[in-house]
Protein backbone atom coordinates (compact mmCIF):
# COMPACT_ATOMS: atom_id res chain seq x y z
CA UNK A 1 0.00 0.00 0.00
CA UNK A 2 1.81 3.09 -1.17
CA UNK A 3 -0.30 5.36 0.99
CA UNK A 4 0.68 3.59 4.21
CA UNK A 5 4.23 3.51 3.05
CA UNK A 6 4.26 7.24 2.43
CA UNK A 7 2.70 7.83 5.81
CA UNK A 8 5.35 5.82 7.62
CA UNK A 9 8.08 7.44 5.59
CA UNK A 10 6.88 10.94 6.32
CA UNK A 11 6.20 10.40 10.00
CA UNK A 12 9.54 8.67 10.27
CA UNK A 13 11.26 11.69 8.77
CA UNK A 14 9.32 14.05 11.02
CA UNK A 15 10.13 12.15 14.19
CA UNK A 16 13.75 11.44 13.40
CA UNK A 17 14.37 14.99 12.23
CA UNK A 18 12.72 16.40 15.33
CA UNK A 19 14.71 14.11 17.55
CA UNK A 20 17.86 15.25 15.82
CA UNK A 21 16.84 18.87 16.25
CA UNK A 22 17.05 18.54 19.99
CA UNK A 23 20.06 16.28 19.72
CA UNK A 24 22.16 18.96 18.09
CA UNK A 25 24.51 21.33 19.77
CA UNK A 26 24.78 23.45 16.67
CA UNK A 27 21.72 25.64 16.28
CA UNK A 28 22.31 25.88 12.54
CA UNK A 29 21.79 22.17 12.11
CA UNK A 30 18.79 22.31 14.38
CA UNK A 31 17.14 24.88 12.18
CA UNK A 32 17.82 22.87 9.03
CA UNK A 33 16.57 19.69 10.58
CA UNK A 34 13.43 21.28 11.81
CA UNK A 35 12.77 22.46 8.27
CA UNK A 36 13.00 18.87 7.16
CA UNK A 37 10.60 17.89 9.90
CA UNK A 38 8.16 20.56 8.86
CA UNK A 39 8.43 19.48 5.27
CA UNK A 40 7.48 15.96 6.30
CA UNK A 41 4.58 17.31 8.26
CA UNK A 42 3.46 19.23 5.20
CA UNK A 43 3.45 15.91 3.39
CA UNK A 44 1.23 14.45 6.10
CA UNK A 45 -1.14 17.38 5.71
CA UNK A 46 -1.43 16.65 2.02
CA UNK A 47 -2.26 13.08 2.91
CA UNK A 48 -4.96 14.45 5.19
CA UNK A 49 -6.52 16.33 2.26
CA UNK A 50 -5.34 19.66 3.55
CA UNK A 51 -3.11 20.90 0.72
CA UNK A 52 -3.61 24.54 1.60
CA UNK A 53 -2.40 23.94 5.13
CA UNK A 54 0.53 22.06 3.73
CA UNK A 55 1.53 24.93 1.47
CA UNK A 56 0.97 27.42 4.25
CA UNK A 57 3.16 25.27 6.45
CA UNK A 58 5.95 25.53 3.92
CA UNK A 59 5.48 29.22 3.23
CA UNK A 60 5.04 30.39 6.79
CA UNK A 61 7.15 27.97 8.77
CA UNK A 62 9.85 27.00 6.33
CA UNK A 63 9.82 30.14 4.24
CA UNK A 64 9.43 32.79 6.88
CA UNK A 65 9.79 31.73 10.48
CA UNK A 66 12.73 29.47 9.95
CA UNK A 67 14.50 31.99 7.76
CA UNK A 68 14.08 34.37 10.65
CA UNK A 69 15.65 31.80 12.97
CA UNK A 70 18.45 31.21 10.54
CA UNK A 71 18.94 34.89 10.19
CA UNK A 72 19.27 35.32 13.93
CA UNK A 73 21.62 32.39 14.22
CA UNK A 74 23.82 33.94 11.60
CA UNK A 75 23.49 37.45 12.91
CA UNK A 76 24.54 36.48 16.39
CA UNK A 77 27.05 34.06 14.93
CA UNK A 78 25.60 31.87 17.63
CA UNK A 79 28.14 29.74 19.36
CA UNK A 80 27.80 26.05 19.76
CA UNK A 81 26.43 25.00 23.05
CA UNK A 82 29.32 24.39 25.36
CA UNK A 83 29.17 20.91 26.69
CA UNK A 84 31.10 21.03 29.91
CA UNK A 85 30.03 24.34 31.24
CA UNK A 86 27.53 23.07 33.75
CA UNK A 87 26.73 25.56 36.41
CA UNK A 88 27.09 23.52 39.53
CA UNK A 89 26.09 26.14 42.04
CA UNK A 90 22.52 25.10 42.12
CA UNK A 91 20.95 21.69 42.56
CA UNK A 92 18.30 22.41 39.95
CA UNK A 93 20.89 23.25 37.33
CA UNK A 94 22.79 19.99 37.33
CA UNK A 95 22.89 17.86 34.20
CA UNK A 96 20.57 15.52 36.01
CA UNK A 97 17.70 17.79 35.24
CA UNK A 98 18.25 17.38 31.54
CA UNK A 99 18.15 13.63 31.94
CA UNK A 100 15.22 13.98 34.23
CA UNK A 101 13.52 16.08 31.57
CA UNK A 102 13.99 13.50 28.90
CA UNK A 103 12.72 10.87 31.28
CA UNK A 104 9.64 12.98 31.83
CA UNK A 105 9.21 13.36 28.09
CA UNK A 106 9.35 9.61 27.75
CA UNK A 107 6.77 9.33 30.48
CA UNK A 108 4.60 11.77 28.57
CA UNK A 109 4.77 9.64 25.46
CA UNK A 110 3.78 6.61 27.46
CA UNK A 111 0.93 8.47 29.04
CA UNK A 112 -0.34 9.84 25.75
CA UNK A 113 -0.12 6.45 24.12
CA UNK A 114 -1.95 5.00 27.05
CA UNK A 115 -4.61 7.66 26.72
CA UNK A 116 -4.94 6.86 23.01
CA UNK A 117 -5.33 3.21 23.69
CA UNK A 118 -7.88 3.82 26.38
CA UNK A 119 -9.84 6.28 24.25
CA UNK A 120 -10.67 3.64 21.63
CA UNK A 121 -12.51 4.30 18.39
CA UNK A 122 -9.30 5.50 16.85
CA UNK A 123 -8.86 2.58 14.54
CA UNK A 124 -11.31 4.10 12.12
CA UNK A 125 -9.52 5.31 9.00
CA UNK A 126 -8.97 8.99 9.19
CA UNK A 127 -10.51 9.66 5.82
CA UNK A 128 -13.75 7.96 6.67
CA UNK A 129 -15.47 11.28 7.12
CA UNK A 130 -16.89 13.57 4.48
CA UNK A 131 -15.26 13.99 1.07
CA UNK A 132 -11.73 15.26 1.13
CA UNK A 133 -12.15 17.54 -1.85
CA UNK A 134 -14.68 19.60 0.04
CA UNK A 135 -12.66 20.28 3.12
CA UNK A 136 -9.48 20.63 1.14
CA UNK A 137 -10.68 23.44 -1.07
CA UNK A 138 -9.40 26.91 -0.40
CA UNK A 139 -12.86 28.23 -1.12
CA UNK A 140 -14.41 26.33 1.78
CA UNK A 141 -11.61 27.33 4.09
CA UNK A 142 -11.93 30.96 3.19
CA UNK A 143 -15.68 30.91 3.65
CA UNK A 144 -15.41 29.56 7.19
CA UNK A 145 -12.41 31.68 8.07
CA UNK A 146 -14.10 34.93 7.09
CA UNK A 147 -17.49 34.17 8.54
CA UNK A 148 -17.36 32.03 11.64
CA UNK A 149 -13.84 32.94 12.64
CA UNK A 150 -13.77 36.51 11.44
CA UNK A 151 -13.39 37.94 14.90
CA UNK A 152 -10.47 35.67 15.71
CA UNK A 153 -8.99 36.57 12.36
CA UNK A 154 -9.18 40.27 13.06
CA UNK A 155 -7.82 39.75 16.55
CA UNK A 156 -4.92 37.89 14.99
CA UNK A 157 -4.11 40.89 12.86
CA UNK A 158 -3.86 42.98 16.00
CA UNK A 159 -1.66 40.30 17.54
CA UNK A 160 0.68 40.45 14.60
CA UNK A 161 0.85 44.21 14.74
CA UNK A 162 1.68 44.08 18.42
CA UNK A 163 4.29 41.39 17.87
CA UNK A 164 5.84 43.47 15.11
CA UNK A 165 6.04 46.59 17.24
CA UNK A 166 7.30 44.54 20.16
CA UNK A 167 10.00 42.89 18.09
CA UNK A 168 11.18 46.23 16.74
CA UNK A 169 11.30 47.79 20.17
CA UNK A 170 13.00 44.82 21.79
CA UNK A 171 15.65 44.31 19.19
CA UNK A 172 16.50 47.97 18.82
CA UNK A 173 19.76 49.02 20.34
CA UNK A 174 19.46 51.48 23.15
CA UNK A 175 20.11 55.01 22.04
CA UNK A 176 18.99 54.33 18.51
CA UNK A 177 16.26 56.66 17.47
Amino acid at each position, binding site marked *: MPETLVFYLLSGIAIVASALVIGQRNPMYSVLLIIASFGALAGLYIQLDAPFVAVAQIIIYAGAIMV*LFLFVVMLLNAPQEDAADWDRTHPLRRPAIARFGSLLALLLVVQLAWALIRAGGLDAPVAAGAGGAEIGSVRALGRVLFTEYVFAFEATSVLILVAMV*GAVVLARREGES
Partner: protein
Amino acid sequence: MIPLGHYLFVSAVLFAIGTAGVFMRRNLITILLSIEIMLNAVNLTFVAFGRQLGTVDGQIIVFFVMTVAAAEAAVGLAIVIALFRHRESLNPDAFTSLKW
Protein backbone atom coordinates in the same frame (compact mmCIF):
# COMPACT_ATOMS: atom_id res chain seq x y z
CA MET B 1 -6.32 4.00 4.95
CA ILE B 2 -4.32 5.12 7.92
CA PRO B 3 -6.18 5.11 11.25
CA LEU B 4 -6.60 8.33 13.14
CA GLY B 5 -4.71 6.88 16.07
CA HIS B 6 -1.52 6.72 14.05
CA TYR B 7 -1.55 10.42 13.41
CA LEU B 8 -2.27 11.11 17.03
CA PHE B 9 0.59 8.90 18.09
CA VAL B 10 2.99 10.67 15.78
CA SER B 11 1.75 13.92 17.21
CA ALA B 12 2.28 12.70 20.78
CA VAL B 13 5.82 11.64 20.02
CA LEU B 14 6.62 14.96 18.39
CA PHE B 15 5.17 16.81 21.33
CA ALA B 16 7.24 14.83 23.77
CA ILE B 17 10.34 15.48 21.69
CA GLY B 18 9.58 19.16 21.89
CA THR B 19 9.22 19.09 25.66
CA ALA B 20 12.37 17.08 26.04
CA GLY B 21 14.16 19.61 23.90
CA VAL B 22 13.16 22.42 26.21
CA PHE B 23 14.93 20.61 29.02
CA MET B 24 17.90 19.18 27.32
CA ARG B 25 19.14 22.10 25.32
CA ARG B 26 20.98 25.01 26.74
CA ASN B 27 20.51 27.30 23.84
CA LEU B 28 17.64 29.74 23.70
CA ILE B 29 17.26 29.36 19.96
CA THR B 30 17.00 25.61 20.18
CA ILE B 31 14.51 25.95 22.98
CA LEU B 32 12.38 28.17 20.79
CA LEU B 33 12.69 25.55 18.07
CA SER B 34 11.51 22.91 20.51
CA ILE B 35 8.46 25.00 21.22
CA GLU B 36 7.81 25.18 17.49
CA ILE B 37 7.96 21.41 17.36
CA MET B 38 5.35 21.22 20.09
CA LEU B 39 3.11 23.63 18.24
CA ASN B 40 3.44 21.59 15.08
CA ALA B 41 2.58 18.41 16.92
CA VAL B 42 -0.62 20.05 18.03
CA ASN B 43 -1.27 21.23 14.49
CA LEU B 44 -1.06 17.70 13.23
CA THR B 45 -3.66 16.63 15.76
CA PHE B 46 -5.97 19.39 14.67
CA VAL B 47 -5.71 18.57 11.02
CA ALA B 48 -6.15 14.85 11.64
CA PHE B 49 -9.23 15.37 13.76
CA GLY B 50 -10.61 17.87 11.28
CA ARG B 51 -10.24 15.31 8.53
CA GLN B 52 -11.86 12.66 10.68
CA LEU B 53 -14.82 14.89 11.48
CA GLY B 54 -15.08 16.22 7.94
CA THR B 55 -14.85 19.87 8.94
CA VAL B 56 -12.46 22.64 8.05
CA ASP B 57 -12.33 24.01 11.58
CA GLY B 58 -9.23 21.99 12.36
CA GLN B 59 -7.37 23.61 9.51
CA ILE B 60 -8.57 27.07 10.50
CA ILE B 61 -7.22 26.59 13.98
CA VAL B 62 -3.93 25.54 12.45
CA PHE B 63 -3.77 28.86 10.67
CA PHE B 64 -4.22 30.66 13.91
CA VAL B 65 -1.58 28.54 15.56
CA MET B 66 0.79 29.38 12.75
CA THR B 67 0.09 33.07 13.17
CA VAL B 68 0.74 32.86 16.86
CA ALA B 69 3.89 30.89 16.20
CA ALA B 70 5.08 33.59 13.81
CA ALA B 71 4.39 36.31 16.35
CA GLU B 72 6.04 34.27 19.05
CA ALA B 73 9.11 33.67 16.92
CA ALA B 74 9.40 37.36 16.08
CA VAL B 75 9.15 38.53 19.65
CA GLY B 76 11.13 35.60 21.02
CA LEU B 77 13.99 36.16 18.62
CA ALA B 78 13.97 39.88 19.34
CA ILE B 79 14.36 39.03 23.00
CA VAL B 80 17.12 36.59 22.17
CA ILE B 81 18.97 39.29 20.28
CA ALA B 82 18.54 41.75 23.14
CA LEU B 83 19.72 39.17 25.66
CA PHE B 84 22.70 38.20 23.56
CA ARG B 85 23.77 41.80 23.41
CA HIS B 86 23.79 41.92 27.19
CA ARG B 87 25.48 38.67 28.06
CA GLU B 88 27.14 37.36 24.94
CA SER B 89 25.46 34.09 25.73
CA LEU B 90 22.44 32.14 24.69
CA ASN B 91 22.42 29.82 27.65
CA PRO B 92 19.15 30.25 29.54
CA ASP B 93 21.00 29.50 32.75
CA ALA B 94 22.95 32.69 32.23
CA PHE B 95 19.77 34.68 32.63
CA THR B 96 18.73 33.83 36.14
CA SER B 97 18.87 37.20 37.78
CA LEU B 98 15.09 37.42 37.88
CA LYS B 99 14.60 35.60 41.15
CA TRP B 100 14.23 36.06 44.89
